[in-house]
Structures are given as C-alpha cells and as structure tokens.
C-alpha cells in the first residue's frame, strides 16, 4: 500500500460472496500479486490476515492517549487542589488521591476514545466534505472488489483471470486510480 497519492494502473476483480473474495485474496497473495486495497460492503472477518496487513497501530494511539488523559488530569487536579487554589474539603489533605481518581478516569476514557477516532480519521484522510469515490457502485451493496496493482510489464491480465476464475469471478476491469490514503 503506498503512502502517497499516486496514479496506479490497477485491475479490479469483482466477487459476489465474501468466501470467494477471501479465497481469491489468498490465492493472489500466494502468486505474489500486490494488493492495492479491497473494498467490501461490510467488515469481512479474517480479511486482514488474508491480505497480510500489519496489526493495527491504533491500539497504541489509544493507550498513549488514555495514559496522557489520566496522568495529565491527575497532575492538573493536584496543581489546582494543592498548589494554585487550595480549598479545605472536609479536613482532608489537599493532595488527596481518591478525590482526583474519578475525573482522571473520565479524562482517560475521553482522550482514549476521541484520540483513537481522530487518529483513524487522520490516517484514513477522512474529513468533512471529502468526496466519495466508489470504484464500483455495488461495492456499497453486495459486491466485493479486490484491487491488484499492475506493477510491471510482466503483469498479464489473462493470467490473473485464469487464477481468479475458480472463485466465481463476476467481472474484471482495468482502471487508473489514485490510491493515496485510501485504506
């Protein structure tokens, strides 16, 4: 998958069933074809493994955001309660940890949740007003599209067709598309 927006000459293979798509993906990878992306109407289980995607780094973003929220808020509350504006509450010490935990917990959840969602938006380059570009209209309904990269001169469409035919291939189409940030 390329990081930067570039024009690719691609081959779009369409399937009608997720099992066919999964098998075709595995077969294409076994043959060494480079998969640009796969478009499905819904999340297909096991597709990430079949495509050979790396484990998501989003969990780390989530963890770090959560820790930042918790520690940041603990410090902030300590700063208010003990340093900047100390108020005696029921005779308790100013830097009482139990009273700061609930808000620190909320801040951790808040930052982890929003951090993950916005990190996802940023990586996927999703922003308000972004134009939809369905490669094939029915990919939002009942079709599954496997996009292969026509890397070099050796790429032979008829060979690919022979490979994918056993998996109830519905259609094969060559197209030039921009692939930047389209994961």
């Amino acid at each position: 998958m390329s990081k930067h927006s570039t024009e690719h000459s691609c081959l779009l293979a369409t399937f009608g069933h997720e099992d066919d798509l999964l098998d075709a993906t595995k077969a294409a990878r076994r043959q060494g074809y480079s998969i640009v992306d796969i478009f499905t109407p819904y999340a297909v289980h096991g597709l990430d493994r079949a495509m050979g995607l790396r484990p998501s780094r989003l969990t780390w973003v989530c963890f770090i955001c959560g820790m930042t929220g918790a520690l940041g808020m603990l410090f902030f509350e300590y700063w208010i309660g003990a340093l900047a504006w100390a108020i005696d509450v029921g005779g308790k010490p100013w830097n009482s940890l139990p009273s700061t935990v609930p808000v620190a917990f909320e801040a951790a959840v808040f930052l982890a949740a929003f951090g993950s969602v916005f990190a996802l938006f940023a990586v996927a380059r999703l922003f308000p007003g972004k134009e939809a570009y369905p490669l094939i209209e029915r990919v939002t309904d009942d079709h599954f599209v496997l996009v292969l990269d026509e890397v070099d001169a050796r790429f032979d469409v008829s060979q690919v067709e022979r490979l994918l035919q056993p998996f109830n291939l519905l259609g094969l189409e060559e197209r030039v598309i921009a692939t930047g940030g389209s994961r």
Partner: protein
Amino acid sequence: MTPATLISPQTSRRLAVLYTVSVIVLAVGAAMEPLRIWSNLLLLGFYLVTVGLGGALFIALTYVCGASWSVGFRRIPEALAVLLAPAAIGLGIILAVGREHYAWHAHGHGDAGTFWFKELWADTSFWLIRAVIYFAVWILLSRALVAVSRSQDQSGSVRLSHFNKRLSAFFLVIYAITFSLASFDWLMLLEPMWFSTIWGVYNFAGMVQATLATMIIAGILLRRRGPLQGVFSDDHLHDLGKLLLGFSCFWMYIWFSQYMLIWYTNMPEETSYFIPRAEGAWAPLMVANLVLNWIVPFLVLLPRPCKRSESVMMKVAVVVLVGRWLDLYLMIFPSTVGSPPALGIWEVAGMGLLVGALGWLFIRSFTRAEPIPSGDPLLAESLHYHC
C-alpha cells in the same frame, strides 16, 4: 470418559495428598484455633460456591445472548455449575456450625436504634432458612440448565436450546436478587453494624473474575490433555481474556466506588470497615489486593498477543485466583480473627484444600458428561469462530 483419561495417576495422587494433608492440618487447627479455622473454611466455602455459581451464570448469559462462540467449551462452565451442589452443602454446614461467630447471632446487636427490619432480617433462624432457600434455588436451576444441555447430546433438538434460553432468563433474575442478598447475609453480616449497598455488586464482580480465571485454566489444561483439543481455540482463549480484562476493570471500578464514597463522607458508621483494613500490616495486603486483581491483569492483558498466549493467560489466571482469595480474606478475617493479619500454616492449608477440592470436584463433574455439547445446533459456529 473416566477421570483417568483426564489426569495422570501421578497428578491424581498429588491432588489426593494435597487434599488429605490439608484436611488433617485443618482438623488439628480446629482444636487449637477454632475461630481462625472456621474463617478459613468460610472463605473456602464461599469461594467454591461462587465459582460454581459463576459457571451457571456464564451458561445463562451466553444462552440469553444467543452466543455461539462459547458453545464448544460449554462443558467447562457446566462442570462448574455441577460442582455448585457439593460446595453449597459444605458452605451450608460451615454457616450452620459457625453461626455463633457472627456477632449478631452470638449476642444480638446491642444497639437500641437498630432499624426494626434489620432485626427481623438478621434473626438467626430466618438467616439459616434463607441460606437453604438460596442454595436450593441455585442448585435446582443450574442443574436443570445442565441436564437440558446434556440431554441435547442425544436428541440434538433446537427446542431444548429455546427452553434453556427461557430458563436462563429466569435464572438471571433470581440469581441477581439472591446472590446480592446472600453476600449481605454471609459476609457483610460479619460486621453487623456496618453496611454497604454496593456489596452485592462488589462480590458479583469478584465472582465473575474468579470464574473466568478458572475457566481459562480449565480450558488450557483440557486442550493440552486431549478432550478439548481442536475445540478450545486461541480465539476462544482470546475472548475469555477480553472478558477477564473487562471484569478486572469492573471489579476495580466497584471496589473504588465503595471505597471513595466512604472515604469522602467520612462517617464513623461507614468508615468502621476500612479503618482496621488500612492500618498496620493490613495496609500492604489491601494494596496487594488491588495489584493482583486489577493492575496485573489490566497491564498484562492489554496487548493482543498476551490474550492468545497459553502461558501468559495461565499465569494471569493464577494471579487473579490468588487475588480473589486475598479479596475474600480481607472481607472476612479482619472481622472475625482481627489484628494482626493471620497468615500461616492454617491459611496455607485452607488454600491447599481449596485447590484440591476445586480440582477434584471439577474433574469429577467434567467426566460425567460428553466433553463437547455435540447436539447443540450452534456448535459448528463455535468451532469456526474467529474473533
């Protein structure tokens, strides 16, 4: 299937030795320090009963949700649910024999301002009758769930699944009420003048945590030993790990909810529970409780590879089970035995008896039925499960 196919004669002998030695040590201790031995037995009985009840709860929850993922290894929680009956009888005897160790039953409340309903509720004979009712209802309903599931092995009828689904919904409602009351009756009443309305939820959280940990260990061992080979997959382990992670956080959340409100309002009638537990040698134990039940499972179970690793999951499950023991220890011992914390040969023997009894009862229950619910229509889905 016989127990011999599950455990080698060597392991069987070791369990038997552990069991016998623990019983002898506890019997000797009963003559020397009866209160301390009784406290150990109460802990042990409550531990076993909640693990058994947790098995029934897990089955009921998965039926009600229509969950298919857990069907393949459902015989594990079913074996725990079967173990509930002997454990309940044991705990029943412990409660009846030791009712004098509850200050309330020994010499009343000694306070003129006590709410009249509390006097009625905590009356010794009513308290004992209630225990019998709880046990009878739990055993009856969990046995019925297991019996229907086992009879499906032959018939494979979908109607049995539907029947169990309805029975499960009924069980869940009954369970929620009775378990909450039972934890009030048996543990909170050790300190009759103290009260906490979150006590039932707190015990529920610990119970589910310990049950999940037991199921994880059982699943891994049964996969290694054969009966669940190719059935209990890494995906199942992964999902149990997610549940354990979730319930560890839930336990911490509830523990802290109870602690913080009492700490904040700082009223003598409420702080009487935490003050002795935060003093002297109890304080490090209270911290250890949080470390074992939350910090360790939380940090270790966060990464995905850990939840799919047999050895990591095994260790975390053991940590959580020790944590559960410590949690109950901190509920019971400061109220009965008192300061300083009593940790010695009697407690070690109590733990030995717990491991021996749990292992022996589980193997006995598990080998009574087919290892896989072969007649369940959702079995195929469970075997092909990917998480």
